[in-house]
């Protein structure tokens, strides 16, 4: 064990190696549950898409393709900066670490801002089932299901972004105080795994809802 490492190891671990492997595996196992959580919603989507393909196509056209494409790009960039943050931490570049973490945070916030605006648009156009719902199209009931699932899926995703963003903000503040280093990078790495997962979840949501009639 290198000098100074022992203070980083919790008493119930043998060494820092075991601790790191344990923490990383913990996040991977957690992500499996996340896959199943989103999977439940996607399952419901699959069933209704199979039942009502035209209605879903029609309803999908109401969504904002421009804003969502920008948002997809923003989120992918945030994944890149997150990956760079992990690299910066492992190679002990403190300044870069803070820069990359902050940009991830900013990009994540932009995503949520745009998402919020999209929700507002839906509200204006009376496309929120149960809250403000008035649909002119051919299949109002089926479209209602489409939008219910849309809000369930994107809402769940946004919740993950908010939770992730909060944790990221705390980590960024700690990073500013030089808490992380090339021997103590678990937290950054695990944060990265989570962030990439949330990103991937969006990569599924985006085509399912926004691109559904544009194939």
């Amino acid at each position, binding site marked *: 064990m290198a000098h100074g490492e022992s203070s980083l190891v919790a*008493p*119930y*671990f*043998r060494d820092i190696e*075991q601790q790191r*492997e*344990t923490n990383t*595996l*913990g996040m991977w*196992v*957690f992500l*499996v*549950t*996340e*896959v*199943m*959580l*989103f*999977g*439940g*919603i996607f*399952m*419901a989507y699959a*069933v*209704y898409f199979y*039942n*009502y393909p035209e209605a879903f196509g029609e309803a999908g056209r109401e969504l904002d393709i421009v804003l969502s494409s920008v948002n997809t790009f923003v989120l992918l960039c945030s994944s890149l900066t997150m990956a760079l943050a992990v690299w910066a931490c492992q190679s002990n570049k403190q300044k870069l670490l803070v820069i990359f973490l902050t940009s991830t945070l900013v990009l994540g916030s932009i995503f949520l801002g745009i998402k919020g605006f999209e929700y507002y648009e839906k509200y204006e156009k009376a496309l929120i*089932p*149960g*809250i403000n719902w008035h649909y002119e199209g051919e299949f109002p*009931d*089926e479209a*209602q*299901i489409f939008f*219910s*699932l849309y*809000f*369930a899926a994107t809402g*769940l995703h946004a919740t993950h972004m908010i939770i992730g963003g909060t944790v990221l903000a705390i980590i960024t503040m700690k990073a500013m105080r030089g808490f992380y280093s090339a021997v103590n990078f678990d937290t950054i790495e695990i944060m990265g795994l989570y962030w990439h997962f949330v990103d991937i979840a969006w990569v599924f949501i985006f085509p399912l809802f926004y691109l559904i009639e544009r194939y």
Partner: protein
Amino acid sequence: MAVTSPPLDLKGHDQENYLNWAYGVKSWLLTTDHKRIAILYLISVTFFFFLGSLAAFVLRIDLMTPQADLMTSDNYNRSFTIHGVIMVFLFLIPAIPGVFGNFLLPIMIGAKDLAFPKINLGSWYVYIISGMFIIAVVLWGGVDTGWTFYTPYSTTYANSAVVLTVVGVFLVGFSSIMTALNFIVTIHKMRAPGLTWFRLPLFIWAMYATSIIIMLGTPVLSATLILVGLERILGMGIFNPALGGDPVLFQHLFWFYSHPAVYIMVLPAMGVASELITCFSRKRVFGYKFIAMSSMAIALIGFLVWGHHMFVSGQSVYAGIVFSLLTFAVAIPSAIKVFNWTATLYKGTIHLQTPMFYVLGFIGLFTIGGLTGLFLGALATDVHVHDTYFVVAHFHYVMVGATVMAYLGALHFWWPKMTGRMYPEALGILSAVIIFIGFNLTFMPQFIMGYVGMPRRYHVYPDEFQALHVASTLGSTVLGIGYILPLCYLIWSLRFGKEAGPNPWGAVGLEWTTSSPPIHTNFEVTPVVTTEAYDYENLEEEV
């Protein structure tokens, strides 16, 4: 194996252990010690067990007469719902993993704690918050959907505290995910040197399989409950046929979790059985690998059979046929276990002590519960007995007959380890016998009345069922006495019980090599494992 342990004094002048290691309410409520968290779980699941039993007892009293004299139908619905919700989500699912999994898993694998002690404490808090939601539901007047929350009744028509209940159940799912995550990672990464996968105690294999089911199943329930909540609060129509939704989809999603949940409840019990049977027959378990792998097979196949709850719900007949076949398939690994336990008993040196009474009861009752499950898995038979007391009796044989029996067996077996004290043996055996008799008296009549057509969830019924209902209620009284007895003498034994010593049963397994109660860090030095599990033959030689 080293055996050193001076007698223990709970007031704590001599030996240090996890109980006297720190004092005060704070040292308990903020503890990250897996053993203390296990005790917190023990207290809370016991509370909810008796709360849920109370609800059941009220039902049984009402069912003594064919008329509705004790309760209105509405209150009856609320009572059986709260009974089901409390027993399934706040007792059966967390009981064995929360209490014995938490306490034993790190010790059995020679670790100092679980991988994420703070998450472990968090899981208990989430459990408690969820319990408070459920208690709030009771105070609010209850919920009347049944523990299954079938839509569109639950989302549109039910006039009771559905949302509160759904939030409570959502949270308790979170709690079990936290526990399961901890268990999986701990088993993977924190085993003592020399403790290979096939040297693990079978209880650990059972916990591992259970945790996998929790990880894969619970999130789907969470997603479903989110949709139910949205539908109930906002009036979205995902499962509402009036708005183009599909209520059968809800049933698919619900049972995708809730059938495997049966194995979340019974697999830990099977793990307990393997430990107890080997110890009280002083014999190596028969077919170790088969038992270990059958746990994994159950975890896997258990995910492919949910449709057997929906044979009459409008799912396609062909789906029904496939689900029926798969249901027969999932019975095979359970049968393997029963045969292997029986083979372990064969020519063993049987010691008939309380835990062994419980586990023998477990095997018998689980066999009945399992075999009647095959009746229900057969399409044609199921159409006849669907939604009758036959189903009620079947799953009570599995959940109460098997899981609660194993839970109590485990409680008696590891009580000396957890508290350092022995319980009174004669009373232990007496209560095990009372519970066995009371249980059969309660639920055997339900098989009969269900078979001749008494539907479940009705409290007004034709006169000819009365004799069977009265028998069942009498049985439940006996059963109740059987449950209250251990509560009394176990508490009594905390102060007055004989000191146990590190290994009162002469059992093998790492937990018996450390003191009773174990010290805060479990072991003085990390143990090194050189033999396979249940090495009773060599233990005899050593002694």
